[in-house]
């Protein structure tokens, strides 16, 4: 048997592959060969490690050294230093953005320290293309137990007792869903997996399918046994080619090994699984629309009831579970419901994966116990705002969710607490926004998405989202009117009440929550024609405060339209007629001397002094 002294876990998730994993891998293997170390070092390609912002990343075990931003050029040096001479290569080691010292151990990196991995238990630890590696991590043990020692009722009871709720967004108890379907008598039933993840900013399902495809398959086999299904489909969007490839490979391997297909593990239980690639329509994440799409028809929702547990795919009883939900099933079967409940709160048990993006230092994928305060996720794991910025809020749950302001960040992340703010946990996308984000613009962005993705079947959603979007566009262009805010709220509530499916029922959420928590931004857009974040070009002018300008020339050099004039070491000036409001001077200035003013600001820069003093006092 081969024995290695170190395993080099190189991340081959989509993020890292895009930043060059493949070339790095080739260089790494070549260098290892050149140094004659191929007998000692094993290079393993893993699924997404979660720390996508710094990719390509690599963890070295047993040393637990974490390397980031690998490049082909640095590989020879890294191999020489670390693997030949035995000293970790400082240059590529993790450095906390706010501090400048190298913290090499994974356990000490705040990004990893606060996380508890259940769904992502195998992330970065196994080669997703080798079934043996999954089996080595207790893979298919739960399936074996479920098929040989448990009845359908036993499985349903454990899952129900665990309190596991659907991780796709709605949070419906998984065990209950299985129970409904198991009680319906039918020769044919379907066990389905929803891998249609469509929220902008959410990528946890893709990551699980890429990093640990067998965990989804195992969860489905156990679910199939619970409800009595013998045929299943995984619905994945075609935009996830790596996920499709690894799932297919996993299905083939599991079938060959007798862990899937006919007569699984010689127990007489059959379950056949196929992948169905969707075209990437957001509405197809809705269960009834997904099932229509699977049938080969145009993906549109239908009214419920009847619920899919009674009449689903081809009118047969069907259960549709999200990828993340299914990945939790096998540890629950092995460790029991009490183990699962040991994390989280009474009603929101276990862990949840969040895709953390936006205006924070550590962008990536994180898994935390439910009930953890938002601020721990955003400030400790996420590393807080970028230098000199202030976090304003977080959009939770993508276009169906809402915006939670910074002052509510003590809130524990549970289904109930988040819903009370007007947002939803949803699939777990967390987009963090700082003071450079215009909240009206943010709401507009999400409405552009939902208006575009509305399938058009029901009028409230088809027409309503378009009207909301048009009003928001008007507001950001300075054409807003008194009363617009109230109209947005009224219409939003009507759309929620009258829409056919989850898409329309949640589409107004981003508007309603931004109005609720950032009403003054809407008002200043409408009344003062002033986008204080300096994002809406029609409602912004940039001015240089002479008292604060040091004449360093940073703004002048960066201005694409040559709108800034001034001599060295003397206050500069922006020529308003030439300014295209691109913000580059605002970002370039180190002395906070660029001020964002309303569209029709007519004053002279000297009048800004008062504002400047106020800023100084605040500091």
């Amino acid at each position, binding site marked *: 048997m081969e024995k290695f002294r170190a395993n080099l876990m190189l991340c081959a998730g989509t993020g890292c592959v895009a930043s060059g994993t493949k070339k790095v891998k080739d260089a790494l293997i070549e260098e290892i060969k050149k140094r004659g170390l191929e007998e000692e070092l094993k290079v393993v390609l893993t699924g997404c490690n979660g720390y996508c912002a710094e990719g390509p990343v690599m963890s070295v075990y*047993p040393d637990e050294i974490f390397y980031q931003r690998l490049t082909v050029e640095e590989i020879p040096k890294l191999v020489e230093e670390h693997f*030949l001479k*035995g*000293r970790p290569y400082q240059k590529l080691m993790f450095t906390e953005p706010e501090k400048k010292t190298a913290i090499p151990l994974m356990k000490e990196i705040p990004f990893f320290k606060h996380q508890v991995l259940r769904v992502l238990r195998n992330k970065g630890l196994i080669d997703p293309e080798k079934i043996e590696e999954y089996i080595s991590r207790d893979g298919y043990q739960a399936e074996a137990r479920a098929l*040989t020692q448990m009845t359908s009722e036993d499985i349903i009871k454990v899952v129900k007792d665990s309190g596991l709720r659907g991780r796709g967004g709605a949070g419906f108890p998984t065990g209950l869903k299985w129970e409904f379907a198991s009680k319906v008598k039918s020769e044919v039933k379907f066990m389905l997996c929803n891998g249609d993840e469509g929220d902008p900013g959410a990528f946890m399902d893709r990551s699980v399918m890429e990093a640990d495809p067998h965990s989804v398959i195992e969860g489905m086999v156990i679910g199939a046994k619970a409800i009595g299904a013998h045929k299943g489909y995984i619905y994945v969007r075609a935009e996830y080619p790596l996920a499709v490839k690894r799932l297919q490979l996993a299905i083939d391997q599991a079938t060959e090994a007798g862990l899937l297909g006919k007569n699984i593990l010689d127990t007489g239980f059959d379950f056949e699984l196929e992948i169905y690639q969707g075209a990437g329509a957001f509405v197809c994440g809705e269960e009834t629309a997904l099932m229509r799409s699977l049938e080969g028809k145009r993906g549109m929702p239908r009214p419920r009831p009847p619920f899919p547990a009674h009449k689903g795919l081809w009118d047969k009883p069907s259960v549709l579970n999200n990828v993340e939900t299914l990945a939790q099933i096998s540890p629950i079967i092995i460790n029991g419901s009490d183990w699962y409940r040991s994390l989280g709160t009474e009603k929101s048990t276990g862990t949840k994966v969040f895709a953390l993006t936006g205006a924070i230092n550590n962008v990536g994928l994180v898994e935390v116990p439910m009930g953890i305060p938002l601020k721990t996720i955003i400030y400790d794991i996420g590393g807080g705002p970028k230098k000199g910025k202030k976090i304003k809020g977080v959009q939770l749950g993508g276009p169906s969710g809402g915006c939670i302001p910074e002052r509510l960040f003590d809130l524990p992340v549970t289904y109930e607490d988040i819903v009370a703010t007007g947002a939803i946990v949803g699939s777990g996308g967390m987009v963090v926004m700082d003071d450079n984000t215009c909240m009206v613009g943010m709401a507009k962005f999400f409405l552009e998405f939902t208006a575009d993705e509305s399938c058009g079947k029901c009028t409230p959603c088809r027409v309503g989202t378009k009207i909301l979007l048009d009003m928001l566009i008007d507001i950001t262009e300075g054409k807003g009117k008194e009363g617009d805010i109230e109209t947005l709220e009224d219409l939003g509530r009507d759309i929620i009440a009258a829409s056919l499916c989850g898409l329309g029922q949640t589409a107004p959420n981003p508007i309603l929550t931004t109005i609720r928590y950032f009403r003054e931004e809407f008002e200043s857009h409408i009344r003062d024609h002033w986008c204080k974040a300096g994002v809406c070009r029609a409602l912004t002018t940039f001015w240089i405060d002479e008292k604060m300008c040091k004449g360093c020339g940073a703004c002048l050099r960066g201005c694409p339209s040559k709108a800034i004039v001034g001599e060295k070491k003397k206050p500069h000036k922006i020529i308003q007629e030439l300014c295209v409001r691109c913000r580059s001077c605002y970002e370039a200035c180190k002395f906070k001397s660029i001020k964002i003013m309303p569209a029709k600001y007519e004053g002279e820069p000297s009048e800004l002094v008062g504002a400047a003093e106020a800023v100084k006092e605040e500091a």
Partner: protein
Amino acid sequence: MPRLTIEDLQKIKEKHKSDFTLREGGYRAKVTVHMGTCGIAAGARAVMTALMDEISKANVTDVIVTTSGCAGLCAREPLATVEIMNRPPVKYCDLSDEKIKEIFKEHILGGNPVEKYALVVGSETTY
């Protein structure tokens, strides 16, 4: 791959255990071969290769081998530090492939430090 039985699942798990001992920790003994320039020049690579062979032959999965830089005492290279869980580390000096084999048998497997090759017990004070 042939069709698996439930017993096979366990066998596969056992077979891959050593890889996961590396990745997850949970090892019983750790051997650090000091591979600074001095160590390499004095033959540390041969020592490590011999050790890896022994571990492989003995088919143990709870021992990991790692490398580090110069231990400071270049005159007595090759050096290696053996750490058994919950015991103070032992540093060996002037190693050869024969000596490390003996250490592997007596100390790592047997639990008794090989006094004749040992340099020191315990670790240096650090601040």
